[in-house]
């Protein structure tokens, strides 16, 4: 029983990072209206930006988060210019292949620039854990896990503020709902889509730091497995619904850790994808309500 509770806590913590990745992903898919395969590499760039900040400036978490947000933001802009802007009216596979090409490009450039091996991340927080006694079970929470959870919650709140209260956020939501209507009320759709894409990528970068801190390592090839997690979580949440994507990320994190409990850690990914496929077969729009997603569904793939 103790083991189960602790695994659930691990799952929540990991799921929170997945949720942050998925939030960024569904912002991009919602605002741009096209699917990206570059996202995993952007997460990797965020992690490396943090790594070099720690190396050059010293252990300053706030600075590292800003650096990786900025790095991912800039790369997001390049992705937008190269892979989306020209292809808004083209069939979907064209921009999709462009993003695949760009992901190969970044992955290999990163191996050239940063070196191909895995780098150890600095331990920025001391390895201490708290034990809670409740209902006769002792629950162990690491300090690292608390920090990750707090950071995820802070960035989600910041994002909610941005989306609900600011003019930009409202424009972003409008573009995400209906591009033509947004155009008609005087929103600069292309610029908004670009900024939205960059913000989504920035959140991916922040998630990259958290991942590298959580696993104490970063490597140029870390992106692809996490981008699969991001796809799964946001598809679970219905692709464009940001809150549901976050929920999807949490679910995948918990299910993975429950799955590890009954088998071995090597099967981790099978549980995530199996769960995804089962949910999709039962309810094709994921957790989101069916009406909201008519746009994504009706688009010709």
């Amino acid at each position, binding site marked *: 029983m103790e083991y189960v509770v602790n695994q659930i806590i691990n799952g929540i913590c990991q799921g929170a990072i997945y949720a942050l990745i998925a939030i960024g992903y569904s912002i991009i898919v919602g605002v741009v209206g096209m*699917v990206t395969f570059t996202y995993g590499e952007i997460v990797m760039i965020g992690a490396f930006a943090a790594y070099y900040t720690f190396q050059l400036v010293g252990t300053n978490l706030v600075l590292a988060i800003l650096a990786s947000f900025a790095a991912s933001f800039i790369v997001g802009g390049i992705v937008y210019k*190269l*892979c989306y802007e*020209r*292809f*808004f*009216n*083209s*069939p*979907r*596979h*064209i*921009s*999709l*292949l*462009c993003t*695949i*090409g*760009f992901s*190969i*490009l970044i*992955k*290999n*450039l990163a*191996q*050239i620039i940063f070196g*191909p091996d895995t780098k150890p991340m600095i331990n920025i927080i001391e390895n201490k854990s708290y034990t809670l006694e409740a209902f006769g079970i002792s629950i162990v929470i690491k300090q690292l896990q608390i920090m990750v959870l707090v950071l995820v919650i802070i960035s989600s709140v910041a994002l909610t503020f941005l989306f609900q209260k600011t003019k930009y956020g409202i424009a972003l939501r409008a573009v995400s709902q209906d591009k033509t209507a947004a155009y008609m009320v005087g929103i600069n759709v292309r610029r908004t889509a670009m900024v939205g894409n960059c913000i989504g990528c920035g959140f991916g970068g922040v998630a990259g730091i958290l991942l590298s801190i959580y696993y104490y390592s970063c490597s140029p090839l870390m992106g*692809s497995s996490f981008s*699969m997690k991001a*796809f*799964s979580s946001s*598809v679970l949440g219905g*692709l464009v619904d940001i809150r549901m994507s976050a929920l999807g990320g949490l679910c995948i994190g918990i299910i993975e850790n429950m799955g590890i409990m009954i088998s*071995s850690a*090597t*099967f981790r*990914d*099978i549980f995530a*994808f*199996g769960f*995804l*496929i089962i949910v*999709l*077969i039962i309810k*094709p729009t994921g957790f989101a309500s069916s009406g909201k997603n008519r746009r*994504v*569904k*009706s*688009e*010709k*793939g």
Partner: protein
Amino acid sequence: MKKVKNTIVKYKLFFILAGLAILLLLPLVITKSVYMRHVCNVLIFATLASSLNIINGYSGQMCLGQAGFFAVGAYTCAILTTNYGWSFWVVWPVAGCLAALMGYLVSLPTLRLQGIYLSFVTLGFSEIIRIIAQTWTPVTGGNMGIKGIPFPIIFGKELFKPHDYYYILLATLLLFLFITSRILRSRIGRAWISIREESNAARSLGVEISRYKSMNFTYGAFWAGMIGAAYAPYVNFVDSSQFSLDTGFDALAMVVIGGQGTLIGPIIGSVVVTVLTESLRFLQYWRFVIYALIIIAMMWVRPQGIAGASNSILAGGKIRRSSRKKAISRNR
């Protein structure tokens, strides 16, 4: 340009026969075994990309997990021939049918899923197959893979040299092209193309969309399994890293670079991509950078691919816009 096309159409049979003769005599010209290996790689990827083209190019579905079907074929062949001593010639169709069964199972959600959701299911399927191959050690050998897959024997001769194996791969590709070109001209092929062009119109004309889509998936997966089964004895060793998502993406890149929805397109794409990545091998990581740049440049300059027609629905908005302009001027 038009003149060239007309000549090709006029002497079509001659060109096909000449091409066949060149292909059959190729091993006599290329004496070095290293180069022959590259030619064999081109053939393998040409067939894999063509099988993906059946799904993506002809019925307009979006499959990203072709590596999964490829892996099913390769592992079926490897396990049955190595551990159970079956003959390659028996295993080959079995592997194809197993992959086709997988394709059918994956296509079942097509009844409810569309567009990008279907792509994600295929992506997840491909990864699940790879992870199973990596972790189910008693059967698939896990990370160690399966070594020493026996070579097929024909008329008492073991085909282990690339010069001999070339004919098996060539036969697979030619058989594929022949059967597929017949199917595409039949009711089934026309139904697939009509689904790609406009699925609502196709449905209103009585095409059972879900049935034909599922048939399309099964057929594409069958050929991916067949070439997978032919691939396993050729490399003599399979492990899960050969069937990562990148293999599927490579096949997709070949299809799109060559031209979706054409029979010759994936073959051209396979030649271009394989020759490029093999000849630049000395550049190490830079060759993938060049490969990536070529993919992006291709999408910018010629989104319909090398062999694709510019008025194809797969080519993009630019062409459609010009046709709309024509329609408007005609109305005036």
